[in-house]
């Protein structure tokens, strides 16, 4: 062993191989995967040199689904089995999907737990499964170009995604067999790509208009710390809406009704998108519509007409921009740079509007399609530990307030929007009946006062409250948001100390049982051995725990543990090492759990020592 080891907390000191980590931008229209190689972050191309993977999946009867350009090419001919823009319905309920109805040509069936299923020739698929198919395709691409298994993945989500949309994205990663390290907000990823590139300091505005979502975030950069001050947006606003506006106009001009012909609608959408791209460079675009009777309408879409069609959509970005500056307590004059992200920001009209809102010319020198994936790759590389000395840290916020339903269908806010995560807030509830042993709580997300105007996240049932007279039972419920922006809940009765169990029913998510079943199905599908996969996962987990503990012992074992304590931990460590190479999954799991229990006290001491050390950099006379 080395003579002297100095380690940052949590970073392994053992010299190890460069571990493969990637960032994935799972977009509405296109998806990308990027990685840091030889210190440079870049997106990875497929075998034919293409970086963008169209986020389109086509399901075929009796065959594997196809993803990307091949699927996209079939979209107009096979609209019902070719799923595009699935991100718009991630984490949504069947009622939300019906509201979006006109813009989505698929047929839906209700799922077991409120999540809709799309009817295809190959069966029913949830949006999570469709997204997992896209992720699998990117995983294969990354493994092929990097030459090995991936150790860690960061997936980006719009900053304005709520809890169910984030959970759905994380579930898709799990379903695709990806080791997801973190969900990262897209604007934050873009800021990382720009900020690290330029060693910038100051306040950044990130204006991100993609295919289906709009985000505006304000960040402060200070010596490697990216602090999100506020974020706002609209998770159903983007280039797709422009395509629909243009397609509707074309169909109207051709004298064709909008409804009833999915093939015609898909073709019109495809042509509308092409016209939009032409108009980013030219003053006009030629368009045509084939009518159901076979006759063809030819026309021209001029810039002025085009601007009139898309302006109402672009204008919807203005109010969130104003709100985010107010929430961040800044004015346009405080902003040092404006960054444009997302394919829709290629449009001259969008660039002009962003410039007038913030009174400055926006930055566009990193490809707006690739900047998010590049930022995610940088973060993945740091999280996996390939750059132990890096000082970069991202402090993100929760985009929408979190609350619970109280009397009269009103919302009581527990955690305010734009609170920095991770965050925990406790709320006390009292029993209102004699001998009450259970309590139901409804959690919602949003900034309106009525429950009906917010999104229902989950219903919790607290059980196991010791029976007491009314009002005597006091249950403290703790809502915790982790660094991915995901919610978890715990509860404890305060007078007796009894822990109440919390049963979570996600309003629009998948239950654990459904995910398990999908995992099994996908494995059968891939003809992979379930047991072998389980074993490999446990072994990887065991290796991670062993490496982390070895590094912690090397750094602080002598200082913080007595000889007996250290012996005890090393004993449990060698037990885990000895079962690790066996084939008994339960035995390995047990070894990990035992070691975890044995090291809790050590972990707590290390944290305490860390706090003392963190403060020792400051002037001593400040300690009161």
């Amino acid at each position, binding site marked *: 062993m080395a003579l002297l080891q100095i380690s940052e907390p949590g970073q392994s000191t053992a010299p190890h191989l460069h571990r493969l980590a990637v960032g994935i931008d799972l977009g509405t229209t296109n998806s990308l995967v990027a990685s840091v190689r030889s210190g440079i972050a870049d997106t990875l191309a497929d075998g034919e040199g293409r970086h963008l993977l169209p986020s389109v999946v086509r399901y075929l009867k009796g065959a594997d689904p196809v993803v990307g350009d091949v699927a996209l090419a079939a979209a107009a001919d096979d609209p019902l089995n070719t799923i595009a823009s699935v991100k718009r319905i991630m984490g949504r309920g069947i009622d939300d999907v019906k509201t979006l109805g006109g813009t989505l040509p698929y047929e839906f069936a209700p799922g077991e737990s409120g999540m809709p299923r799309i009817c295809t020739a190959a069966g029913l698929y949830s949006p999570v499964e469709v997204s997992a198919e896209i992720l699998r395709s990117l995983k294969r691409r990354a493994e092929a170009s990097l030459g090995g298994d991936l150790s860690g993945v960061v997936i980006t989500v719009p900053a304005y995604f709520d809890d169910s949309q984030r959970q759905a994205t994380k579930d898709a990663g799990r379903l695709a067999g990806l080791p997801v390290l973190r969900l990262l907000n897209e604007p934050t990823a873009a800021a990382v790509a720009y900020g690290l590139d330029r060693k910038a300091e100051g306040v950044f505005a990130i204006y991100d208009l993609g295919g289906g979502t709009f985000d505006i975030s304000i960040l402060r950069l200070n010596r490697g710390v990216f602090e999100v001050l506020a974020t706002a947006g609209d998770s159903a606003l983007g280039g797709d809406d422009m395509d629909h506006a243009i397609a509707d106009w074309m169909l109207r001009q051709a004298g064709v009704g909008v409804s009833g012909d999915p093939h015609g609608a898909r073709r019109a959408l495809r042509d509308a998108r092409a016209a939009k791209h032409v108009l980013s460079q030219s003053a006009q675009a030629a368009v045509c519509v084939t009518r159901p009777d076979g006759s063809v309408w030819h026309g021209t879409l001029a810039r002025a007409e085009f601007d009139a069609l898309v302006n109402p959509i672009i204008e919807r970005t203005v109010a969130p921009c104003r709100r985010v500056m107010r929430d961040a307590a800044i004015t346009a004059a405080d902003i040092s740079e404006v960054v444009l992200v997302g394919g829709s920001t290629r449009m001259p009209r969008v660039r002009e509007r962003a410039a007038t809102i913030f009174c400055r010319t926006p930055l566009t020198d990193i490809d707006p399609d690739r900047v998010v994936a590049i930022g995610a790759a940088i973060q993945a590389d740091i999280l996996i530990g390939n750059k132990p000395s890096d000082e970069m*840290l991202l402090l993100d916020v929760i985009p929408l307030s979190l609350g619970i339903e109280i009397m009269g269908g009103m919302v009581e806010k527990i955690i305010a929007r734009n*609170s920095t995560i*991770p*965050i*925990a807030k406790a709320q006390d509830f009292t029993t209102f009946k004699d001998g009450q042993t259970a309590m139901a709580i409804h959690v919602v997300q949003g900034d309106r006062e009525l429950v009906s105007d917010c999104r229902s996240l989950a219903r919790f049932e607290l059980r196991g409250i010791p029976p007491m007279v009314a009002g005597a039972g006091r249950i403290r419920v703790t809502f915790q948001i982790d*660094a991915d922006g995901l919610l978890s809940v715990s509860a404890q009765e305060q007078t007796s100390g009894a822990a109440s169990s919390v049963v979570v029913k996600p309003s629009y998510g998948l239950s654990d049982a459904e995910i398990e079943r999908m995992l099994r199905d996908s494995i059968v599908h891939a003809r992979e051995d379930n047991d072998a996969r389980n074993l490999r996962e446990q072994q990887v987990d065991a290796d991670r725990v062993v490496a982390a503990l070895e590094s912690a012992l090397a750094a602080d074992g002598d200082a913080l543990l007595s000889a007996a304590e250290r012996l005890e931990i090393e004993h449990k460590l060698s037990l885990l090492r000895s079962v690790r190479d066996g084939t008994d999954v339960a035995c390995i799991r047990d070894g990990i759990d035992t070691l975890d229990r044995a090291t*809790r006290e050590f972990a707590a001491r290390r944290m305490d020592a860390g706090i003392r050390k963190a403060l020792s950099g400051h002037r001593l006379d*400040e300690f*009161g």
Partner: protein
Amino acid sequence: MQANVEKNFFELFGLPVGFDVDAADLATRYRDLQRRFHPDRYANATDAERRLSLQIAAQINQGFQTLKEPLSRGRYLLALRGVSTDEETDTSMDPEFLVEQMELRESLDEARHSPPRREQLAREVDALLRTRTEFLGRSFAGGDSEALLRARELVREMQFLKKLARAIEDLEEAD
């Protein structure tokens, strides 16, 4: 299992317990603490350390939020000294202050559709908040029980004014 972070927020940030907090210094300490304890720094650590880092990072965030704003800092300081502000249950306020509040609410109604008048009103409320913040600092410096009661009153009034300021902002947003 718990790390010894049952310290109060001032101790967590290595600051003397008191109302005067330098905003820039607090922000630097905050970033230094998060640099060390944020869950991202523990992506490869043991499970026990990962859970603790989540817990401590949440506490650092809450501490920063609490100490950053004069109102929440004042309320927290009072709580540390055993004085509850009882904003939910105790509704008795100085009658003069209540009359002033009613007048401000009326001006808010009148300013509903006039952005310049709204801005004027926002400035007025801001000035009232700032004077109270200054008085609050002096009351805490006093430290005797009478000064603490005065501080309690100021915090309660600031809570009213903060709500009013938010109502003005909401009007701007609704425009």
